[in-house]
């Protein structure tokens, strides 16, 4: 991390984040990470202004930071007035940077604007912000039946935290002493695919009271409730996936995009892919889904596809029981894709690849639940 910090740069970044947040109000895109980012920027600014002898604006930044802290903890909601106040805070701070500390009267007048807004209480049903599986839901129900309460803990993770370090965080030992962990997001293998502010969410059950837990847990936590209709839970088994692709960068990208859906194996050429397919079948753990490149050494995609379908036919595996195979293609390769359909591929993914394209394909093949 650089040892230089520019107040103006931080303020510009804050304004950019507010503009991005404003956009989400119109598009309906998820805004959770932006709220965290804005909170962190305000927090950093508050710390920095004191060192620049601009402590007169700390109360204003504290009010702004607190408003967004409430929202990120699920204790308040974003109202359009608060966003406007955020932009006014940026203008206020730009004035401070050019003219120096505000007078106490100026700061108090600005603070009064925050007070007038208020921050509405969060609805009783808490947005978990994470999917939970049927198994995790069973653990949750069992915990409740045993008289425990379920809590949601949120911990900020640094950008540099690795998958190997995640299990070593002391929070796990602490929670192990106090109760039982029901679910976490992200898992270690999902860490690298997270973008923006990285937030670890943990669902945790305990018989201890909030007061007792507060003596040992130092991250924000709140009681978690399942909505009456059921959460965005899924009766979902992991999808076993084979990627047959010779380009290394595409292999890396696909591994990241597919990590949320299940275990992924990669073969760098058609022959290795074919061997992996047969091994998995012999072990009784055949692949559910294959992403296939067409142009590969040793055995190209068309040969792989033809051999696989012939094998399935010889085993009496027909129709919907067949392995789902999609071709990974660029826009200019549609003739290749059309031929692949004739040779019995189930679909195609057009580059650039995204997790959403993959999810839609899996849903279409009924390998992934509806969300």
């Amino acid at each position, binding site marked *: *991390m650089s040892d230089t910090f520019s107040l103006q740069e931080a303020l510009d970044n804050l304004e950019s984040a507010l503009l991005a947040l404003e956009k989400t109000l119109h598009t309906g895109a998820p805004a959770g990470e932006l709220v965290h980012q804005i909170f962190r920027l305000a*927090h950093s600014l508050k710390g920095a202004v004191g060192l620049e002898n601009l402590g007169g604006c700390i109360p204003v930044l504290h009010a702004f930071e607190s408003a967004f802290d409430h929202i990120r903890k699920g204790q308040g909601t974003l109202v359009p007035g608060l966003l406007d106040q955020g932009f006014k805070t940026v203008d206020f701070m730009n004035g401070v940077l050019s003219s120096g500390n505000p007078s106490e009267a100026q700061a108090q007048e600005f603070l009064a604007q925050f007070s007038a807004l208020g921050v509405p209480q969060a609805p009783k049903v808490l947005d978990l912000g994470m999917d939970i599986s049927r198994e995790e839901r069973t653990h949750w129900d069992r915990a409740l039946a045993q008289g425990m309460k379920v809590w949601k803990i949120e911990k900020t993770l*640094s950008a*540099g935290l690795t998958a190997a*370090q995640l299990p070593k965080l*002391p929070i796990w030992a602490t929670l192990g002493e106090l109760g039982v962990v029901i679910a976490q997001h992200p898992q270690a293998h999902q860490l690298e695919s997270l973008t923006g502010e990285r937030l670890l969410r943990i669902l945790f059950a305990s018989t201890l009271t909030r007061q007792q837990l507060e003596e040992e847990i130092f991250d924000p936590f709140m009681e978690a409730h399942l909505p009456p209709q059921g959460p965005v839970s899924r009766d979902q088994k992991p999808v076993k996936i084979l990627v047959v692709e010779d380009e290394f960068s595409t292999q890396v990208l696909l591994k990241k995009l597919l990590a949320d859906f299940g275990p992924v194996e990669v073969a760098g050429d058609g022959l290795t892919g074919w061997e992996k397919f047969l091994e998995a079948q012999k072990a009784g753990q055949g692949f559910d889904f294959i992403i296939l490149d067409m142009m590969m050494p040793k055995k190209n995609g068309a040969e792989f596809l033809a051999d696989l379908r012939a094998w399935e036919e010889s085993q009496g595996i027909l129709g919907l029981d067949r392995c789902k195979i999609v071709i990974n293609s660029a826009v200019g390769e549609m003739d290749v894709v059309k031929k692949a359909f004739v040779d019995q591929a189930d679909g195609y993914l057009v580059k650039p690849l995204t997790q959403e394209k993959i999810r839609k394909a899996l849903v279409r093949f009924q390998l992934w639940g509806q969300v």
Partner: protein
Amino acid sequence: MAKKRILILDDMAMNRSFIKVFFVSHGFETVTAEDGLVGLETFQKETFDLVFSDIEMPNLTGLEFLKAAKKVPGKGHIPIVMLSSLADEATKTRAQTLGAAAYIVKPFTEEKIQEALKPLGLL
């Protein structure tokens, strides 16, 4: 005479720099960490006379660090001063209960640091 060593934990570079400059000017050898997890590993492996730790950090909060550091065999006596923008009494009390030697509310100044360290006899 060997220099006293201080470990400085804060995820903000500017804060680390400010505290480092202060302690270098007072003849300390300084070690910094921007991450409480790395800071804890460093604390376990190396010798320190003093620790300054921010409370609000990713991965491992300052209070988590404090609780874990006090359990490191043979190092429970090392004074750990907490730094925070949180002025609420509840957080201060928690820090004291966990064994913090002092609690400085940001924005910190040289005067606040000196006032916190006076009873510790380290300056």
